[in-house]
């Protein structure tokens, strides 16, 4: 245990370096995913046929083992070892949790609320903006949260295709049989993931509209 702390302190600067690469990968992946998958989720909530196709694809991609997906992109000339491949893989993995949460968030809004709003003359853009999106916000955010947490873990695997991030502590540690190095990676990564999960979970609860939290017993 003390060896572990000693190792971490001695290598603090390189660990911090790894951590910042780790975060930058997660951040870019989530940013790109937001731009791609939220509109796609909204789109498929209006077209059932498209929805089943898109969700089928997302689900299938999600099944592919991470090491396999990362490695496959390496074989594509333009991507190769490093950032583009890692980024692409993470964005593709994010498709499943993000698209499905946007889709379901919009879909679970009570049909009668939509019927009444439409019946009062609200157009569909207004219904989306004023009713569906606010009510879906917590579920949509849950998708983002799952994505961030998942990306934290999967990004580590990208160390095998040349990312210099926290995963490297594990990959190098394993090749060099360096127990402290392995442990520091294997403890830091889950810790960060759990931290993200907790913090984003709190934000998610804050997004629930007030009208859904109150009840008559107040």
């Amino acid at each position, binding site marked *: 245990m003390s060896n572990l702390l000693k190792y971490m302190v001695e290598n603090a600067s390189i660990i911090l370096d790894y951590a910042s690469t780790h975060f930058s990968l997660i951040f870019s992946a989530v940013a790109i995913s937001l731009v791609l998958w939220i509109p796609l989720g909204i789109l498929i909530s209006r077209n059932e046929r498209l929805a089943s196709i898109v969700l089928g694809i997302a689900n299938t991609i999600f099944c592919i083992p991470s090491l396999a997906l990362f490695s496959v992109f390496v074989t594509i000339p333009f991507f190769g070892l490093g950032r583009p491949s890692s980024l692409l893989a993470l964005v593709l993995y994010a498709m499943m949790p993000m698209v499905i949460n946007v889709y379901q968030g919009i879909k679970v809004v*009570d049909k*009668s609320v939509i*019927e*009444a*709003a*439409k019946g*009062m003359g609200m157009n569909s853009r207004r219904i989306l903006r004023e009713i569906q999106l606010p009510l879906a916000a917590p579920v949509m955010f849950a998708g983002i949260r799952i994505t961030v947490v998942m990306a934290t873990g999967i990004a580590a695997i990208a160390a095998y295709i040349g990312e210099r991030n926290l995963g490297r502590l594990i990959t190098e540690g394993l090749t060099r049989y360096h127990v402290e190095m392995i442990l520091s990676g294997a403890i830091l990564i889950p810790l960060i993931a759990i931290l993200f999960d907790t913090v984003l979970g709190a934000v998610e609860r804050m997004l629930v509209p007030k009208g*859904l939290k109150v009840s*008559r017993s107040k």
Partner: protein
Amino acid sequence: MIELHDVTKIYAGQTVPAVKNLTLKIKEGETCVFVGPSGCGKSTILRMINRMIEQTSGTILINNKDIREADPDRLRMGIGYVIQQIGLLPHRTIAENISIVPRLYGWDKERIRKRVDELLELMGLDPDETRDKFPAQLSGGQMQRVGVARAMAADPPIMLMDEPFGAVDPIVRGHLQDEFLKIQREMKKTICFVTHDINEAIKMGDTIAIFEKGQLVQHGTPQEILSKPKNEFVRTFIGTDRVVKMLTLFQVRSITKDNYSIIRENELANIRQKMDDEGAAVGILMNESAKPCGLITRDDLEKAGELNPEKIKEIACGKKDAFIDGDLLLNDALSLMLEWNCDYLGVLDGAQLIGIVSFDDIRECVRRKEGE
């Protein structure tokens, strides 16, 4: 005015029409109730009128204009729409919910605020208490009221109401119906009201349209429907107590007569004489403060035989509750007659005696209406 001409709706992927060749006119200021078993196409008709769905063929006119020429959203803004599930926005306060359509019209804040309070008041809700609550904080009955208030927010001349009081218990439903009738009596909106409950239809409708499997079977006033059911389906739908239901259309006041005698304590001895002189069927016993406190019929007198004042008073006072308010309905009167085993009831207006109603008169009334 709403007119449907030969309107048919066949949902995509179905072969049987949900509504078939419907022609129907709803006059301005009239409440037309669509009634029929569930699945007979009532909601479908309603939803075609505000273009939530498009008819497959036929034309729908509102104030002589084909609704297909209007912009659907503008059309709907001008038509109040209430559905059974209410559909209040759960993340908006009651005030915000009610002000949806005024906001779409671009009213200013002050005008909206005033209107919200006015509507809450009209629907029997305390504005200060209700305004800032969320739907989840209201009871079922309160939510239904808000649903109706929201539909009336911009004072649309037409309202479509799809089982608007269907989600609450019978007692609350009764209250809501009474209050809405009162409001409608002043506002005179053109209303299409859907229900599967024939009693609600009789109570709420100026006219009733009865549907079976997408087709209009009969359209007429409640009295026409009840007195002349067009076929076996309508007859069954109304039920075996058809005639008793018909009694609900008339107030006791409307058939009250004055062939009674006022009998004071000191007149008990020659009661028969007095009733004969006045040609009365009933003697109403009055106490010192001129309040009716008993009732006795000729029949009772016959049976009593010997005319002992004490005995007469006892018989009369035994029916001290055989009185009914003139505002109540003939079915209530009938019920009381059966309860007191008595062919006559005294009719009151408040505490004031205004006449009597007899079993024969009720029977006569029914016979006459049936014959019309």
